[in-house]
């Protein structure tokens, strides 16, 4: 990996931009694997577009 030079120490943290379903999942997985996560979302709540959906296919589950 060239961007982080061999003399720099790795940061054990990840920045996730976007708090929709993908951002949330990525943040959870990274955090649960032992990395500190900064999650940035521009709106006041996470959830993204999925939170606006009524039900989801093909199981007709509630999207909340």
């Amino acid at each position, binding site marked *: *990996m*060239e*961007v*982080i030079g061999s003399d720099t*120490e*790795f*940061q*054990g*943290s*990840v*920045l*996730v*931009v*976007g708090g*929709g*379903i*993908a*951002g*949330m*999942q*990525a*943040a*959870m*997985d*990274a*955090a*649960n*694997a*032992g*990395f*500190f996560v*900064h999650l940035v979302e*521009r*709106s*006041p*709540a*996470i*959830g*993204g*577009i*999925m*939170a*606006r*959906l*009524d*039900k*989801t*296919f*093909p*199981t*007709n*589950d509630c999207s*909340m």
Partner: protein
Amino acid sequence: MDTEKCIACGLCAEKCPKKVTDLFNEGLIKRKAIYVPYAQAVPLKYAIDPESCIYLQKGKCGACEKLCPSGAINFKDRESVIEREVGSVILAPGFRSYDPSGLDFYAYDRSADVVTAPEFERMLSAGGPTAGHLLKPSGRAQGIEPEKIAWIQCVGSRDQNRCGHEYCSAVCCMFAVKQAVIAREHSRRPLDCAIFFMDLRTQGKDFDRYVDRAKKDGVRFVRARVHSIEPTGSEDGLRLRYALEDGSLAEEAFDVVVLSTGLEIDPGAKTLADRLTVDLDADGFVKASPLSPVCTSVPGIYACGAFTGPKDIPHSVMEASAAASAATEKIAAARHTRTRAVQRPEQIDVRQENPRIGVFVCNCGINIGGVVRVPEVVRFAETLPSVVYVEENLFTCSQDTQDKIVDIIREKRLNRVVVAACTPRTHESLFQETMAGAGLNKYLFEMANIRNHDSWVHANDPDAATKKAKDLVRMAVVKAALLRPLDEDQLPLTRTALVVGGGIAGMTAALCLAEQGYPVDLVERSDRLGGHGRRLLETGAGEPMAPFVEGLAERVVNHPDIRVHLESSVTAVEGFVGNFNTTVTSADGAAAIEHGVAVLATGAAESRPAEYLYGEHPAVVTSLELDDLIAGESGKVSAASDVLFVQCVGSRDDERPYCSKVCCTHSIQSALKIKRRNPEANVFVLYRDIRTYGQRETLYNQARKSGVHFFRYSLANKPNVSANGKKVRVEFIDPLLDRRFFVDADLLCLASAIVPRRNEELAQMFKVPTDADGWLLEAHQKLRPVDAATDGVFLCGMAHYPKPVDESIAQAKAAAARAATYLSMEAISVGGIVSVIDERDCTGCGACVAVCPYSAITMDQSRKTAVVNPALCKGCGACAAACPSETPKLMGFTHAQLYAQIKGALAA
């Protein structure tokens, strides 16, 4: 807004004088300038919209600041820049829905009854502006319900002329069908739903089944491109004009038209990408190779979700996990360096003590206290048995109250705590932490929800609310008296993984895990790695497969942390997450492998068609066989002057109702190759729906431009194939001209179905169920697409469902990421709220074994008793309900505790 202080009481929004358009509800209703986006928002904290706030704009008002009971509002708060150093970055900015405003022929600007799909989604939602009551937008005030709704597909997708988006948005066909089904459910009257489409692209797992159900249910599917929507201004509503397949023009009136608007990238996301110098493609999506689906052009920056191409939720979730895997791979050495563990005092043993219950009743500002007479509830609680201390708090959840609770637990020697406040869903863990901080077992805690279940529901009836609060407190107290401390054991875990299957998915998963620092055993049935990847020629983007697969296999074989077992198979599996013990058998004998997690990547197979003269005539081949012919440079391909492809051979029929997902793209790629090699050749594709979803649409357009002929056939009118010397004669009906044609083809390529491998035994050993079609079943189709229902077992690649290479790789990386969340744990925490079976009372009838959804209960045949594995038990209680003699005890919810609670409820 200080989110630490905000208690989401809602007073501010109630008093806020400024109303603004609610964008969450697609502008269909108004909200206040201080707001929560929606009722279930996380965090559930109010926010000020600075563009609309009167105080922030004009310096006056400030009503909310004065009213806020917790002093959470601070108008002096300013935007601040926070700098953080991070190891890697994941971009997941999502998409926005295409805005059809400019398209005059769809009359979106002119008629309220033409709505976009996201708007319709809010109209259907129970949490939306009409509370899920389906109303005609133009007649909402009068309560007029629609009788006929039309969906127009491909608005802002597959349309280069008007909106410049060549790609298919991949999700609209399914969401339109879903909306039609749900709309019919919501409507009190029979609702006529029609979907106008070009190709029905429902290629996902179980999607075609859903469509079949919709068809049976009466949703109409009309294969037509609607060219105009005209508001009639009369009761007729909207007039749709369109051309039917046979060329005749048709007209039909609808009350509401839903435009199935496609996905596009938000300009904000493009700016973000520019700032980070991440390359985007012509469509605005992140430029990524199908062979490394979540990597951007900048090392250390990864992307997932709709930002890398239009996709549905399960695929987004998969990619998100894949991105987490990729983003943490290179910084794996720094794992746990930025996180910290919690310190707690030693636990006090209270088992020999009589219950001493402390009750904390919360006012929740005025949320509870404004309705329920809290002092009266406090006095009542004092009279309850075993209660030794009762206290009223303004906010029981505040930090200073936590400290106070700890002091009181010590001072009054409390050994059970009841908090009467809001919902355990959000606050139980906080109070349990407080308990642990005071040295009490966290399971000696009980909550009574006197807010959501009481003060909010009976806001206008303080007497009833107070009475109910007492009932709820009594129920909690009688249950609390019976609570017992529950132990959680910490089991050590083996930090290694077993990957079954050495195809692209299996190798990718193995490599990702090894890069994360976890040793991997890779088991492959055949004598070499690569699987089907070795027979594929190139990816959807035209990259050659062979060097990639070769390179991948080499890296796997040479990786110090990967042990490859060729010509081996799994013959026995014991144990559970963290502690599996698997027997792998090869010609050399059996070997026991200990591992903490397992990834199943056993792939799928190409079916051998039983029709169209396959196996009887040398000109008839399958897709993969054609690939072999093309790769082998045999004269057979170059010499062919007429080549014909038949799609959906063995897919989407009665026997296999699913779509094999990759064949449309595969056949079109092969067709293009043949055309390139011999431009004079006539190439025909007989299809049912062309499913080049997402950006694969480009290939379809290329094929049409290069002169490949496409003809549609239906299941009722399948083509007829007969031998004609060295050629085969294929007869079919062209629905456009309504005439019979035949082609004497030198080569007939059958896009045969992809079928699951018959590995029920392996699935059974790992306790992973298969679905009706034989694919391995994930824990949740949307939200846990790579987890199996069994903890510590993951699936990826074709074993889960047919999918192209990029999706297989993403899913494999995702499986590695999910597996890493277990492998990085300190220990496996076992116990707590789990079921316990006393073998003296167990008759061994097996009812609990049959109902356990997590296969956590097994039958000890020698002793004839059921045994619960606490590492697998999730505490759902199904066994406790199924047992005829109430033998399984669900700790924390035992029969005795529940009966006490019921009696408490009825004691008034």
